[in-house]
């Protein structure tokens, strides 16, 4: 497939990618109370990656998410697992959730729940997966030195 991606399409996708990634983060953050969560969020980011590939190929993908997929995968896995261990070390059960409620000046009441940390791990893995799969299966022409 030695087509030149259309510059207009590419531009469009790259400019749309930012809002889509923000939306995916919103899904991640809202998931505990609204539809969404790490999976849905990660998958939206994944779809963004696919669109970027379709519009501009691997280079565009790299411009949008400039990380190796393996780093995201490893990081996600480590974060999710460590969340489990944090509560274990704190004397609770593995993966037991902890809650922290603070009233911060200006922002108001912020509720921090440890499952969010876990969900971030999920999100990272799903993004890393989308990235890795697109890079590997779409890896033609294979000019890029793929990290994963």
């Amino acid at each position, binding site marked *: 497939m030695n087509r030149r991606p259309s510059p207009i399409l590419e531009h469009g996708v790259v400019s749309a990618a930012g809002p889509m990634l923000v939306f995916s983060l919103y899904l991640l953050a809202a998931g505990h*109370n*609204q539809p969404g969560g790490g*999976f849905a969020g990660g998958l939206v980011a994944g779809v963004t990656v696919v669109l970027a590939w379709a519009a501009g190929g691997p280079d565009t993908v790299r411009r949008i998410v400039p990380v190796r997929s393996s780093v995201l995968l490893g990081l996600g896995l480590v974060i999710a697992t460590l969340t489990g261990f944090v509560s274990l070390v704190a004397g609770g059960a593995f993966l037991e959730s902890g809650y922290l409620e603070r009233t911060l000046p200006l922002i108001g009441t912020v509720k921090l729940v440890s499952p969010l940390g876990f969900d971030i791990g999920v999100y990272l893995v*799903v993004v890393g*997966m989308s990235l890795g799969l697109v890079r590997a*299966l779409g890896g033609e022409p294979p000019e890029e030195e793929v990290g994963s």
Partner: protein
Amino acid sequence: MSLISLAVAAILFGVGTYLILQRALSRIIIGLGLVSHGANLLIVIGGGFGGVPPILSEGVDPATVADPLPQAMVLTAIVITFGVTALLLALALRSYLLTGTDEVEDDPEDRRVAREVHPVVEPDPDEDMHEVVA
């Protein structure tokens, strides 16, 4: 659950099975996709008659929500199936790139075994009657 959905799940299983039972790997993967759709649907049906989304915001009566556990299990299953499907696709691609086809051939060693013959080995009557004790 409802009879319509159960029938849809069953049909997905049937069509999927029909597609799996042949040799083109890409078609097998599509068949497996149908079967897992069927299985996911089946799990959700197993949770009961449905209901309002299990999001307990103000004004939602907990008694009317759909059973959330099958939904969570299916979500997990969907994602796992996705990962494995991706792997299988990669395998199909590798198979195609290496062999020029995505057909799953019969195991050659099994076929060889099935054809093998074992003659009765007769002892050699003129064998040297001497032990080499070098």
